[in-house]
Structure formats: structure tokens, C-alpha cells
């Protein structure tokens, strides 16, 4: 059915693991954050937690698999994850979404 170029396809095929030690850098931009809790709720490894005001903070950076899901699901562009190479991250995301019941037909 699909004949269009899908620019991300190539990237998605790259994969593999990275050294556990390489820590992510997670930034929470408080001025834009509305404390909705989405990032924390869906972090697959429970890296993020919420303070009494509901704002997220990094609780356990070690566990971050840099999947970037917190970043793309944040409705307010208020959290960012500095990651390793694009290809690797994509591979992870894909895995994660799939486990949640989705065959990502789009890419």
C-alpha cells in the first residue's frame, strides 16, 4: 500500500546496545512544565518521579534507557533527554511502543 519514501526507515534499522555507564542527560524546563505527570507515568523504567507539586524530577538516572518517550509525550515540550545516536534510540522506542500493543505501521 505504501509507496512513499519514509525517511526514518533507514535509521530505524540500525540498532544495538550501548554501554550501561553512559548516563542520559534529562532536562526539565520548569517554566513550561505544567506538572501533568505524563512523563513520569509512562517512563518505562521509572526514572522520573513527581514532587509534592506534581512536578517531575529525576529520581534514578541510572535506569534511564534514553528511549525519549517522556520527551515526545510531554505536551509542553518541557522535558528533554540528551541521548546517544539517533538510530539506537529509535530502535528502543519502537520496541517499547510495540510492547504496548502497537505495530507501528507508520515507520
Amino acid at each position, binding site marked *: 500500500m505504501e509507496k512513499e519514501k519514509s525517511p526514518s526507515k533507514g535509521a530505524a534499522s540500525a540498532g544495538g546496545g550501548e554501554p550501561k555507564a553512559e548516563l542520559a542527560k534529562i532536562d526539565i524546563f520548569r517554566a513550561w512544565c505544567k506538572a501533568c505527570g505524563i512523563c513520569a507515568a509512562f517512563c518505562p523504567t521509572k526514572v522520573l518521579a513527581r514532587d509534592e507539586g506534581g512536578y517531575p524530577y529525576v529520581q534514578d538516572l541510572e535506569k534511564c534507557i534514553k528511549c525519549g518517550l517522556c520527551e515526545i509525550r510531554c505536551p509542553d515540550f518541557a522535558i528533554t533527554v540528551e541521548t546517544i545516536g539517533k538510530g539506537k534510540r529509535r530502535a528502543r522506542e519502537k520496541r517499547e511502543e510495540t510492547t504496548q500493543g*502497537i505495530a507501528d*505501521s507508520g515507520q
Partner: protein
Amino acid sequence: MPEVTKLIHKYLRHDKKFPHVWCPGCGIGILLGALIRAIDRVGYDKNEIVLVSGIGCSSRLPVYVDFHTLHTTHGRALTFATGVKLANPKLKVIVVMGDGDAMAIGGNHFIHAARRNIGMTTIILNNNIYGMTGGQYSPTTPHGMKASTAIYGHIEQAFKISEMAVAAGAAFVARGTVFHAKQLDGLIEQALVKSGFSVVEAMAHCHTQYGRQNRLGSAVEMLEAQRDNAIPVEKASKMAPEALVGKIVTGVLVNKELLVYEEEYEKVRERAGLMMEK
């Protein structure tokens, strides 16, 4: 700045106030991110994009991004978009609407745009409610649910937006959810590169209005529901209709080649030119 954020910030308007207007946790912001990623991937120039919307929470989306943005009247976005595209077919026209905007007051423009197959992409944020005006039922509010104008339970059948688009003749129709944000940007990307009229229905939550009235919990809980109810179309096609009640069938529902309006009109110009000479 991290990569994705850099990307997002490349497209956000710097002279517009953030945080944006939507409620904490609203799905529209997630859609905005998905749209930006898709646009970036297809590599359109900011100057060739016209992002059109109607009126509603969802229709507040364009104002935050640095394209030509056109916030029109309630339900009429596609009519403006039609004029833009036909007057300058080189422009990439993208239309964002809410379920009320697209399917209540704007339902006719939607089916006619689908029928004409003018080359543009329509993204409908379906949160099953009129968010902006305070939670009245929309044409996609399911039977039995509550809304501020249906406190005794809603009695109408809901439209299936994507299925209506298919019946009206759209060349490309896909459905995603904001929970599956990556899939969503992939679907939008495919829609953008499709020649002809393409539709992406993005299921989203309005916890403030729809969620509150129906005790569906916070944004997080409503996102969980999206996660749990989404069924890829490939899988759904093998399931019994009854098993699909309350489910969200996601993926590309239709993708076909049809004559594209602006290309056909170019032929009209040629024919007319020939006749005029005679």
C-alpha cells in the same frame, strides 16, 4: 540543546508566549510535537507550509508554530484551505481541526474536500467532546457517555471519522492516538507525502471536560486507556466487529491512487486554452 528539542524549537514561534494555552496534560500538545517531527522529516520549508485551523482547543495549535498560520472560523478551515491550495498549488496545506470543528459544524466541508481530492492533509484531533466551550457532546461522543448537554447520558450514535472519510472518497486515511506519539508522527508523515487528500484522525483525551464528566480520571489515566484500547488495523481486520466495540483501530485504513484535483484542473486550463483559441 538536545536534538529533539532543538527540532521542536526550530519550529515553535519565538514571539509567542509559552507555555501554551492548553490544560496541563492535554493531548493537543503531544499532537503538536508529532506534527513537527513529521514535517521535519519530510523536509518542507517553513515558507511553503500553510497550517490552517478552525475554532476550538485543537484549532489553537497553529498559532504556536512558525509557518503561515491561518486560524479561521468554526468548521470552515477546509474551505479556506481549498482556496489557498488552488490559488497556489505549490503550497503545502495542512489543516488541523477538532472533532466538533471537523464533524459537527464542518462535516460537510470535510466530506466534500475528501470527495474532491485536493492535495492537502487534514489532521483531526478527536477528543470526543467540545473542549473549548466546556464539554458539550460532539458527533463523536459515544452513546451512553455524559456531557454538559447530556447529563442523563448521550443517546446518539457516534460518527466514525476515519470511516466517514473513506466513504466520502479520501485517498489516504489513517488513525492514531496521542499515546502512540511515534506512530502518530509516522502516520502524519505518510499523509503529508501522499498526493491528494489525506486524513489523519488523532485520538486524544480531554480529561478536563470529557474525562471529568465521565470520571475517566487524569490525563495519565486516559492515556492508559488509549494504550489499552488501540488495535492495529492489521490485527483488527481479523477480529469480529463485536470484539472491536470500544477499541481504537489504528494504522493506515486506506491508501489509494485517485485523480488529484489541482492536476485535473491544470488539464481544464489546457482544454479551455485550446477552445478559446478556436
